[in-house]
């Protein structure tokens, strides 16, 4: 009797293991696959450390760009940089800029025509730190923005020469860019109104 009960328990245990093996192994495989995906959370990722790094990066960005640019980034989440600033043919005393870039953190630069909002190209560029001090080569988001800003305003040709050029829409959703350009217009109008009001209040 005891022997029969033990045998039954063993059979039940073996069947349970066999039934559970499928879903468990699938779950383990899925977990391993997720860890190996590009952009997945790297080993040793510390959200607190990353947050502190991002706060420092934001402070550094703020100390480098114009006040209006900082407000643009803080409120809209991207920066606009005029293109061809050093090109005498493109500037030629004209106040209109032939083209400009939108800088998003950890996304390609988007080049567009300000007057028509036509998208021209995407420039895929990043700044990988191969020393990987904490396991990742990725700069904090605001450092990535600052690196793009400083390189674009300092030596546009050099940065664009290092980037991979693609047609618009390959990595950045064009509808989102159009929405962001519309938001930028609205933001600039509101800012101009605020500046006028402040000016009229302080005028004698």
């Amino acid at each position: 009797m005891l022997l029969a009960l033990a045998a039954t328990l063993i059979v039940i245990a073996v069947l349970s293991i066999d039934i559970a093996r499928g879903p468990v192994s699938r779950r383990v495989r899925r977990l391993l696959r997720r860890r190996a995906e590009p952009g997945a959370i790297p080993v040793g990722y510390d959200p607190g450390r990353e947050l502190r790094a991002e706060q420092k990066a934001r402070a550094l960005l703020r100390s480098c760009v114009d006040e209006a640019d900082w407000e643009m980034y803080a409120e809209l989440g991207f920066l606009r940089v005029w293109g061809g600033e050093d090109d005498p043919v493109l500037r030629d005393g004209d106040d209109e800029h032939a083209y400009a870039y939108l800088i998003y953190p950890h996304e390609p630069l988007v080049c567009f025509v300000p007057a028509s909002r036509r998208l021209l190209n995407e420039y895929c560029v990043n700044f990988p730190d191969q020393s990987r001090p904490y396991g990742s080569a990725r700069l904090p988001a605001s450092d990535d923005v600052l690196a793009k800003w400083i390189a674009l305003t300092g030596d546009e040709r050099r940065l664009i020469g290092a980037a991979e050029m693609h047609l618009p829409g390959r990595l950045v959703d064009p509808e989102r860019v159009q929405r962001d350009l519309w938001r930028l217009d609205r933001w600039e109008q509101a800012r101009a109104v605020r500046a006028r009001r402040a000016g009229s209040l302080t005028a004698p």
Partner: protein
Amino acid sequence: MKFLRMMPGHGELLLAEGDPSVREEEQELIDAFREQLELGMWAAVPTAAPGGRRRGRMVTAFGEVPRDAERVIFFPRAAGG
């Protein structure tokens, strides 16, 4: 003059600090500058352009850094993709 380096998981890191008008400190700055370039970093100085707009100025040698610059920022060189 301060040398700052952007770093993953850290934000900026102070690499060196010195007065370029003091000979010994200038040499330390030159050595630190060279070391970062050898590590594959790009270097830039935040400046104000005529008219007041701020912008970056890329530098490839210590001699190109304006003497009155407060900061030189090092960051990993750009790569496509």
